[in-house]
């Protein structure tokens, strides 16, 4: 494990705290509604690097989108720094996106204006931030931070996929945001490019103190993140910290079992939760008074 991947235990001054309480989001489609998130309670501390894991359709990207202020939640609260996103006006959300948050969409090309160079894309992204009163770093500094200063003025279509993803990252960082959100930032990349992007994410976190939240399917990527949050069926299904998997007790006291435990306790199974020798134990019905 490289030094960049070490757990960032300390709170950074430049990072934003992200927290949700009872977050619900429902997609309204013709004829039926789909609950993408159904009560997410999650806190990401300032300067943390967090990976959102989970199967397709679990609600990871929706959660990321809500963090970025691109949608309003159907219910619950989303707090990013001092901003309660669910109650902000549209103009405030525009300013929030311009200055406080950087979002890397899935697919590098979607983040870039194809007719501009990487540096020009960064400059384009900085205009709104400046207009919002944000002091932005020089584009060169951003390019240097992501390690793309040598290709800053090259046409985008001449860049390899890894560098294109770095360019997308640079654009998201253009306003030196307190929160960097990445939707599968390493997908469709070779290992070397993937590592390059991950290194860059850690460097950004380290040097600017930016809070980083990325969605990933890739276990190898997850393994390099100090904290992972697994989203399952629209809820926080568990967390991983430094390689250890944990179940997370919800605000209402419920506790989602990890997948392996579900086999032992199928839905509908009756269990008794008891403290045995100082340890809280789940005891299936019919197993006597001793835990299992």
């Amino acid at each position, binding site marked *: 494990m490289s030094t960049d991947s070490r757990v960032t235990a300390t709170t950074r001054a430049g990072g934003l705290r992200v927290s949700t309480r009872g977050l619900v989001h429902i997609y309204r489609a013709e004829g039926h509604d789909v609950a993408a998130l159904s009560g997410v309670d999650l806190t990401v501390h300032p300067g943390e690097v967090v990976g959102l894991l989970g199967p397709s359709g679990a609600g990871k990207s929706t959660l990321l*989108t809500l963090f*970025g202020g*691109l*949608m309003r939640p159907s219910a619950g609260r989303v707090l990013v720094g001092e901003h309660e996103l669910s109650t902000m006006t*549209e*103009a405030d959300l*525009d*300013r*929030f*996106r*311009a*200055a406080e948050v950087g*979002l890397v*969409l899935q*697919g590098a*090309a*979607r*983040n*870039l*204006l*194809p*007719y*501009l160079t990487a540096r*020009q894309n960064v400059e*384009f*992204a900085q205009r*709104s*931030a400046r*207009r*919002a009163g944000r002091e932005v770093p020089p584009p060169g500094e951003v390019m240097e931070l992501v390690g793309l200063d040598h290709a800053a003025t090259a046409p985008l279509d001449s860049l390899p996929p890894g560098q294109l993803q770095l360019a997308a990252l640079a*654009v998201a960082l*253009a*306003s030196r945001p307190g929160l960097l959100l990445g939707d599968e930032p390493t997908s469709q990349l070779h290992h070397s490019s993937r590592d390059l992007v991950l290194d860059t994410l850690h460097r950004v976190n380290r040097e600017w103190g930016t809070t980083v939240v990325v969605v990933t399917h890739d276990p190898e990527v997850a393994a390099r993140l100090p904290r992972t949050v697994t989203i399952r069926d629209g809820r926080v299904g568990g967390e991983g910290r430094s390689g250890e998997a944990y179940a997370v007790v919800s605000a209402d006291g419920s506790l989602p079992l990890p997948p392996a435990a579900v086999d032992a306790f199928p839905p509908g199974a009756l269990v008794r939760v008891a403290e045995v020798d100082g340890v809280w134990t789940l005891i299936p019905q019919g197993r006597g008074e001793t835990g299992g």
Partner: protein
Amino acid sequence: MWAAIRYRRAQAVVLVLLAALVATCAVFAPLYQRALEQSLLRSSISSASVADTALVVRAGRGTANPVFGPSALSGNVPGSVRVLYGAPVGQLADSINIVPRAGLKPSPGDLVARDQVCQHLKITTGTCPRVPGEILVSAKDLAAWQWPVGTKLTTPVPSISQTERPTATLKVVGAYEVVPDAAYWQRTQLDGKSGTLITVGLEQVPGIDDFVTTEATFTRDWSVAQATLTFPLKRDLFTLGNLQQISDVLAAKGGDRSAGEGIDGALVETQLPTIIDGIRVGQHQLRVIVPLLMAQLGLLAAAILLLVAQAAVEQRRPEVALARLRGRSREGAGRIVMGELAATVAIGLPIGFALALLLTTLVRWFLLPDGVPFEVPWYSVVALAASAVVCAVAIWLAARPVQRLTVSALLRRVSRERARAFGIVDILAVALAVFGLIGLATGSLEGPLALVTPTLVALAAGLVASRLAVPVAGASGRANLRRGRIGPALTAFGLERRPTLRKVVTVVSVAVALTVFAANALVVGDRNWQARAEVQTGAPAVIDTDSRNPTSLLATVRAIDPTGTLASPVAIVRQADRSSTATMAVVTKDFEETSFAPPGEPYRLGALAPPDIAPVQLSGSRVTGRLAWDLTIPGDDSTPRPAGQSGAPVSPTIGPGSEEPNELRVSVTSPTGQRLTRLIAQIPLRGKGSAELNGLLLCPDGCRLDGLEFRKTDEQVSQVSGTLSITGLGIDGKSLGISAPNQWNPFVAPPTSTSDKLEQVPAGADTLALELNSTGFAVALSHADVPAVVPGLLAGPVPPGGTAQGFDAIGLNGAPMVAAAQQTVDTLPVLGSQGVLVDYETLARLGGRLPDAGTLSVWVADPAEADSVATQLQAQGVGVLARHSTAAAKDRLDESASAWGLRLAVFTGGMGVLLAALVVLVMTVTGWRVVARDLAALHMSGVPLKELRRSLVREQVVLVLVGTVVGVVCGAVSSWVAMPLVPLFDSAADPVPALELAPDALAIVGSAVGAALVLVAVGWLAAVGAGRRITLRRIRESL
């Protein structure tokens, strides 16, 4: 922004082109209209005669002003008017009556003094008059009447005084021939009368040309002389700009002359206001036609610009999404797209302006008459600004939906599926189209909505058709799929899915409808101009001759063309009152060969055929035969009568008495066409008796028997009735054999004396027995070689005082005749909607010469033979006065305002197709990535590439064909209802012949097929191009 424009270079070029076309349409309309108005002005002024445009001041001498010359009239023209005219020509004239040769009756003429007259005459003999009383006579008169120089001619001087009848002696000092110069002579015609007969009262006398003298000849004795002062127009002073000003000035003519100047009561006349009114009518027509055509095109171009802008904005959705993602507001993100599109469009606008200027220049060079100036009126710049606004609005409308989307919606790769229900735009378009259609059909709609209704109809139909096409395509796709027909199913599903369906079908519908409407308008206009030209000329070629003799011209033409299939004589005689019914005589059996088929119901020419009875030529010295009579006076009056009241004694005198005798006369027509009566018997007022006829015929050159006339000369008697019997009526003892009943026309009683009659009753061989009743002056029986009531085809109302069975008309010899309408027709050639068509040969039997108001022409069926016919006519001594042709008449109509205006249809039709082709291309260019990606996915699923490409081509062809069919129907409907909006003729009067505005099927089908071919070809090429891009790597593309 410029980087973004460069990135989609092809699309930018299309947008620039489209904006340029919008600007071209907007700017070309006023430029073209202005150029046409200039053409109209020049054409109207140049085609008007010098006399028509001149200002004439005229006044007669009188007791108030017994002596003044033309120059005194100068004061009647205000200075503001005078500046428009050149140096005036003065003239003083009065009537004279000259006895050309001793023993003849005096012939009327004019004595004329005109400024610088001798400079415009060729003095063939003698000198120009210098002193009062000296005159020039025409060279023809000099020769005809043997007037040597020095001859003194006396004329009474016209005078107001009833008591004083002064005379003037005029001394011939020379002879002249007129040197033609329209600018100088204006309407003055000195010659042309010599050698012709002039009717004076009941007599005909030889005409003499006018005498030319000096102004000094007109002494105080010439107290009713007419002075005229003619000002020629300075044509170069006329511009469109000062037309109103000139009109105002002319309207006030004479009203603001300085006190003490000019002559009281002088008339100031000019035809210029009429010409100006004509120009204004033309301008009005252009203001209807040009917008009518250009508004359609402008609407189409704007709609296309909107559609293309929508497509362009849709393509920029990801960029808008990125801008929103990076914190731009909705408006800010929208401005990025709008700015890029606006900059692109802004490049196109000046190009369009330049294109419009170029187009106008080309039109000036190749279409319009010479001399039309190159102008850029201020309102063309306004039109450019308006097109800029239209473009801006189109871009704004296109960008609005994207601005309304949320960031997350913008980030979706596929835009939300459009609602399939009818939207507000569709409902609004349909409502406006229906409203417009009803308004046009009922004739209650005018103004801008009327002008754009044809396009609105197509727009609404296109929108509805495109809406309906989606479910139909879906159903078709499913049906084909069930049958295992993959190709058609793919095509149908492609049509169902593509957002281009709605746009392409709508635009193609509008474009084809516009093209069809424009092509039809042009063809229908041309059809009506051709019909008008044919009516104006009557035959493909017309030769106006100087012949005054219908019979001799008929013989001459027969010598040239014995069959009558190539050439035929036609006579037209108008009455003094132009609104009266004129007479046209044609050789009915030649008519169908040499003239155009008349519009409307075919003529029943058979009803006009000449009678089978041959004319009877009288040649000899005396009328002979035996007359028996048996006359009574019903309700005998016994009023005492003064002695000695008697008519002039004639020979022979039969039965003198105290009562005025009745007269029996034979009427004849002389070779010169004069109708004369010869007294052949005086018959006692009443009683029985018989006597030999022995009257003088007095026809040294032969006469035609016209009929018999019984005159009741005794005014004291109100009625005479009884019988007459003439046996062996003949010449110099030789019976004419004309006693058979069919030799005489049935008696026609005059409307005022319906009880009158002179009817033939059965009698013995060679005896003409007549039963008579006379309450008026005379009753007459006419020989049946010419019907008593001439059958004719009547156009227009029955002349006042007549009925369809009998109305007054004028014969070829100028004599009145009674005609009956065998058929009422809408239009007659040349005469239009007022006249009567009769048989030439029938009237020619009456003999005589055409009156002054008549024209003898030769109609030629083949214009190529007109030269030959004219040459042969001249070789036989018939002068050619003028030549006309239908082609020339059509050319004149082709130079009318409406014709020039409708030529714009070629431009609008072409531009409509071009714009639609551009849309087909743009929709393919902007959508090919998505389409190629879709089809690449299908290819990956195993559908052969060839099948996919064929499907793509079929999609395009079906789109174009559906739009074409809808467009053809809408174009035809619009043609039907909107053509009455198009003013085809300059005159506000009812058109003759009546307008034929039914759509032309060939024009509609032809233009539709042409448009469809072009659009299918473009669609096919675009689809082939897009099909080549179907590769598997497209699946990986995201932007």
